[in-house]
């Protein structure tokens, strides 16, 4: 799963030469053998490395604060999202919904690699949501639909249908 994400990320970044990854441990943590030094371990680390390799530092955040926020979201993706249970899903979606109430992107007002990786991570949750739930977490759905249509991001994932109009009124059970 993580390997496919990394190859999609490479395609988005326009990196000509795809890297060879291996995995480590039962959690299949991705590993990138680096010619110049020790191997890079972990999805977030490798993603940041790829962004630097592609010379697109703005994708990591334009200000110091935004860079920190991007790192936080990458952490969140790997620690909270990847191993969440069914009960966690509701909490995660509720928190994300609240956070995205007044934001277009996760960090600053720009598209960053945080958006990409959280999108990849949350995709399996969104696929299983009923229309009514998607309406309930309206900010998450809005952000998700925006990211999945962002040129070059989606690649290996099937699109999730998002309806334009609300079909459940506030009084609906």
């Amino acid at each position, binding site marked *: 799963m993580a390997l496919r994400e990394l190859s999609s990320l490479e395609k988005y970044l326009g990196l000509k030469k795809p890297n060879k990854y291996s995995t480590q441990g039962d959690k299949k943590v991705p590993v990138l053998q680096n010619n110049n030094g020790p191997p890079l371990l972990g999805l977030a680390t490798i993603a940041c490395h790829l962004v630097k390799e592609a010379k697109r530092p703005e994708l990591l955040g334009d200000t110091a604060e935004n860079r920190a926020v991007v790192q936080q979201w990458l952490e969140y993706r790997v620690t909270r999202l990847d191993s969440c249970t069914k009960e966690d899903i509701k909490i995660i979606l509720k928190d994300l919904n609240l956070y995205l109430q007044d934001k277009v992107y996760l960090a600053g007002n720009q598209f960053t690699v945080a958006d990409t990786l959280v999108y990849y991570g949350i995709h399996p949750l969104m696929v299983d949501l*009923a*229309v009514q739930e998607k309406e309930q977490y309206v900010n998450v759905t809005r952000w998700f639909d925006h990211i999945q249509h962002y040129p070059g991001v989606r690649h290996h994932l099937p699109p999730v249908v998002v*309806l334009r*109009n609300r*079909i459940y009124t506030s009084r609906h*059970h």
Partner: protein
Amino acid sequence: MTKEAVQGATEEEQQAQSKKAMKKQQKEAEKAAKKAEKQAKLTAEQQTTEEDDFAKDRYGVPAMVQSQQKLDRELVRVQDLTPEKADQLIWLRARVHTSRAKGKQCFLVLRQQQFNVQALVAVGDRASKQMVKFAANITKESIVDVEASVRKVEQKIESCSQQDVELHIERIFVVSQAEARLPLQLEDAVRPDGEGEEEGRATVNQDTKLDNRVIDLRTTTSQAIFRLQSGVCQLFRDTLTNKGFVEIQTPKIISAASEGGANVFTVSYFKTSAYLAQSPQLYKQMCICADFDKVFCVGPVFRAEDSNTHRHLTEFVGLDIEMAFNYHYHEVIDSITDTMVQIFKGLRDNFQTEIQTVNKQFPSEPFKFLEPTLRLEYTEGVAMLREAGVEMGDEDDLSTPNEKLLGRLVKEKYDTDFYVLDKYPLAVRPFYTMPDPNDPKYSNSYDMFMRGEEILSGAQRIHDAQLLTDRATHHQIDLEKIKSYIDSFRFGAPPHGGGGIGLERVCMLYLGLHNVRQTSMFPRDPKRLTP
């Protein structure tokens, strides 16, 4: 211990004992004093009761009404108590909804079905203290005969249906006394669920209501629901009769299961067994073959389905229609949808009070429909669902969640709560459904939906004995069991079609309720056989 010490101890004991004894004596004395006081008070009260009750003849519990006499007395209805009757002395019979004493007065609320009025017994020259006390002690739900004068009030009484008047009671008699402990309180039974939780006041859960149905049916909400239901039946009959339909009665004890053997009740029939009819399907069709042309029937339907859902009952009232048509089964659809629209209009125009009463406890959006009724093809419905992200095959049946989702999509797109889905796949319909003439995968069958839930399943029926036999064989049905059914088509049968609706489900969905047991007077489900 030394002797002295022992002695000392005994002395102490003795002192302690006498102290105890003294205390005991004191207590007993106090008790006796209190008792004497009470006695004195009682005797004093009794004296006053005997002395001052000048109103003895104006209240009490008379002998049970065993038709001893024919009283030429007019009883006024609570709903007719208006300022026009001000200062008139009237008699009425109603239930005591509440009674509350306040010093020298007792306030009662007297109720008749959905109407109630405030009444007052006050100590004065017409009523004695004992009479007021009697009124305050009448148990809730007791039936009373009251003679009172109607008085106008300056301030509207918000809590009653008759807001502009109140009754000043001159005489009050208990015709039928209710037991003091009611299994449920009517105010609780009518309280909306949310309000109960918020304010910490009780609501009554559905099982309790159903166990004590007689009392639950007295609430304003229940009265409104079943009056509306009566209206549905009436409108159904009147509309169809005006269209030239004939009402028929079909047998409910039958020899073979009509819709498939799984969900049928078996009864012992003398030396053999019989079944309770799952639908009047077969007999409706036989009537058409018997030249009745257009028929309808209203009667019980028995389904032994072990489903404990919000919309299934084991016994419900079926409103069934069957008619011969000229060239196209859409004539049947148009007739049925027009009947439904007439019913909706009739309810909207004549039963607004009932609808509002139900909405007070169960808020919902008003029912919307289009004229002419919206008709979508099955393939269109599937396309709408696919657009919303649902994955399903062309010939798949609609699952309940998908039906509901489609209902929401249709509501959002066309603004209607009522629509028809036409041309279902043949594979998911019963054996007697006429296949589509051009595409063998589809059939001339349709479902109708209210608020996203199915209320009617219908189709053009196969009126050719040979084709019917072929389809039955294809569905692996024992031809012997349906021999008399197939025979009815052998001697000339017109093309025909129809459908059936469930009365309880239609009422539930029209009012926007969530459980079919609310619209069934004495519901039957796998877990309930009484009352």
